[in-house]
């Protein structure tokens, strides 16, 4: 059953060296605070999964925490390349990392299969695409009715998934709304799920019945971290800090500047600092 924990303990209890871990968020609701806590605790040899690894994956890779990444788009969305990830892939700095690359359709179907308890996902994909030749985890099955050859990829089953969400109720049920991305599947596919939320409310009695609510028994731990997705955004709470994404491109371009930034803003910082970072991004009421 779910526990409400300070983020430091939620991360320490659920993440371990060598784990396969997803910090999911599709532009919206990226669990930055949780990733920063993982960086502070210095985990090693992680297999990092995400459809759209962005700043926090650039940071974890740049800090040498990743053994392997599994992804479908390794970019700073709308800005360009991820320079720490590039440095690792192109130059093996600070360490070489293994790459398993899919399309968005492949990753989305693989998470869906993980949530659905299946060993693999079957879909129409990768036709004529170069990835099928370089990724041995892209195979095929044949439809027994039509003979059509379909793509198959293994289900994604992370040891632990971290997501950020709008709110929990006191019982620990969690609401995700807006661009909901792949978060529900990432939680249900994982052995353990940790959720950071903007706030806790008494109950969800007034919620529309068809919203994306994760029942408390599907979650291991919840931590209240206002602003916890900055510089991503939380629909209904604060806007995306587009300027921070543009700025990251410069910070990550230089190994030393990256290290300095990480020490100031992550290592010597804490989950409590996120609230202040989004103050100016909250909408006028």
């Amino acid at each position, binding site marked *: 059953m779910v526990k409400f924990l300070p983020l430091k303990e939620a991360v320490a209890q659920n993440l371990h060296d060598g784990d396969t871990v997803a910090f999911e968020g*599709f*532009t*919206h609701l990226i669990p930055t605070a949780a990733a920063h806590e993982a960086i502070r605790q210095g985990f090693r040899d992680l297999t990092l999964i995400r*459809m*759209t690894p962005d700043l926090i994956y650039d940071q974890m890779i740049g800090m040498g925490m990743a053994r392997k990444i599994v*992804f*479908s*788009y*390794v*970019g700073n*969305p*709308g*800005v*360009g*390349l*991820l320079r720490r*990830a*590039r440095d690792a*892939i*192109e130059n093996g700095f600070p360490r070489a990392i293994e790459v398993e*690359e899919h*399309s*968005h*359709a*492949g990753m*989305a*179907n693989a998470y*869906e299969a993980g949530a659905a308890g299946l060993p693999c996902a079957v*879909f*129409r*994909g*990768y*036709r*004529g*695409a*170069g*990835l099928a030749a*370089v990724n041995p985890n892209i195979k095929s099955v044949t439809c027994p009715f039509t003979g*059509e*050859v379909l793509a198959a990829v293994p289900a994604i089953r992370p040891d632990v998934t971290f997501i950020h969400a709008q709110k929990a109720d006191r019982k620990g049920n969690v609401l995700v709304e*807006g*661009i*909901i*991305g*792949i978060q*529900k599947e990432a939680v249900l596919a994982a052995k353990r799920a940790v959720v950071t939320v903007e706030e806790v409310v008494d109950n969800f009695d007034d919620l529309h019945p068809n919203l*994306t609510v994760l029942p408390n028994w599907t979650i291991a731990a919840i931590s209240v971290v206002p602003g916890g997705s900055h510089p991503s955004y939380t*629909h209904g709470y*604060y*806007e*995306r*800090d*587009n*300027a*921070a*994404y*543009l700025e990251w491109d410069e910070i990550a371009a230089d190994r030393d500047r990256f290290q300095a930034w990480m020490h100031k803003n992550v290592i010597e910082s804490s989950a409590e600092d996120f609230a202040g970072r989004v103050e*100016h991004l*909250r*909408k006028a009421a």
Partner: protein
Amino acid sequence: MSDADNLGFTPNEMMTIAASRALRSNDVCFVGIGAPSAACNVARLTHAPDITLIYESGTIGTAPDVLPLSIGDGELCETAVTTVAVPEMFRYWLQGGRISIGFLGAAQLDKFGNINTTVIGDYAHPKTRLPGGGGAPEIATSSRQVYITMAQSKRGMVEKIDFFTSFGHGEGGDHRKRLGIDTAGPTLLITDLAIWKPDPVTKEFTVVSLHPGVSLEQVQATCGWTVKFAEALDETPAPTELELKTLRDLQARTKAAHQGTAKGKAA
């Protein structure tokens, strides 16, 4: 090359506006970020008000007031008819065959509309690791047609791309059909200099219209393969006042919003 001072518009503006004109109100577009996003929204704000714009973050029928920086900006959700989960987006909406136009950009493009946004150099030991395909591999095969926009350059338009991120017409001819792909693939390429369409048989992109003030030599000088030109070559109509104003207003609103804190500081 022509620029805004000479003609009243830039080549990039011409590219975006020419692309917008190819869209219709009954189109359902799967929109990539950058030039495709601008073109789709100019179409929506001018001649195609009922066009359905879909971004891969799950927003269906969206009508953003500013262009999103990412494919998942809040604006897209707030103005959408509905916002669905990402697996549903790729299963029901893209794979389901509901997209009439998949709109893609390209880092590297060949003359058969094959696109590379994955790596420059060898895949295992890349010279430059690019972001990768994202939704493109299946956008290219599940959309009924694919439109491509990119600014021309010898580095970008090449004889042989380094990696097949998404499949266009492969080696040309009926290569798609031979792979069991039953959609039309790239049917339109709009650059900053010209409009290209595939030859009906060979599927090689052929210039069918030059933008105002652009010469055949300019097109060839910025393209890495030997360009084929149609016999009856059109001139792309210059942007209208309304088109230009719509695009520039959109970009001005976008620039203000992407300062990131512009809205927030007003609070």
